């Protein structure tokens, strides 16, 4: 197992740095482009959520940990912050069958994350929000 950690201020402006860090590690694992895009999407939703809500109005740090497993090829990406306790998975899924006029965009991000990742877990432990995304890296 290969593990890399990035500690960074939880600011939306740092999103390109976070995505760069994740992509660099995925490329080393020969991750297919389509899966990389899906992972980027999930990473963006989670990191932007932390940047917008965890420490408001202050700024705090977020830790992003990428763990690559070889056999079978799987990535675990864990986000850890010490902001206000917040379980994004507790929210009800939006109704994606509604028409445009009835549609509310809120909650769509985390819904996409749940659909696109193989597994999403949240726990609050010792003052930390810990959210882990899991995704297999093999083409299906």
């Amino acid at each position, binding site marked *: 197992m290969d593990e890399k950690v990035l500690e960074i201020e939880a600011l939306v402006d740092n999103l390109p740095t976070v995505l760069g860090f994740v992509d660099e590690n995925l490329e080393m694992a020969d991750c297919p482009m389509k899966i990389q895009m899906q992972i980027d999407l999930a990473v963006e939703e989670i990191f932007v959520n932390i940047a917008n809500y965890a420490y408001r109005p202050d700024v705090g740090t977020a830790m992003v940990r990428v763990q690559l497993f070889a056999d079978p090829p799987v990535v675990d990406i864990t986000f850890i912050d010490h902001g206000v306790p917040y379980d994004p998975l507790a929210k009800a899924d939006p109704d994606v069958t*509604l028409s445009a*006029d009835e*549609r509310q965009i809120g909650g769509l*991000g985390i*819904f*996409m994350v749940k659909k696109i990742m193989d597994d999403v877990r949240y726990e609050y432990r010792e003052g930390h929000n810990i959210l882990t995304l899991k995704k297999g890296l093999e083409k299906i």
Partner: protein
Amino acid sequence: MNIKTAVEGAVVTVSVSGRIDTTTSPALEQELKGRFDNCEELILDFAEVEYISSAGLRVLLMAHKTMSRKKGMTLKNVGPEIMEIFDVTGFSDILAIE
């Protein structure tokens, strides 16, 4: 992300390339909002779009709602990866995709 806009009478074609994410979607929103007044029909060319996040979907929904009071908004050249995101989120049922 780059945006190219072509205006032919009341038909506005906006070609987007690159990534439509949290950091770039405000620029797309601003471009579209600036075109609505003189636009009856909006075409979004997605041939060069590599990635779209929920921030980008928000802009598309806003534009779709605005244009539905006129002749509408059409997306063309949507690639399979982007299409999958539209499918997952139900956007493929809402948007007019050629």
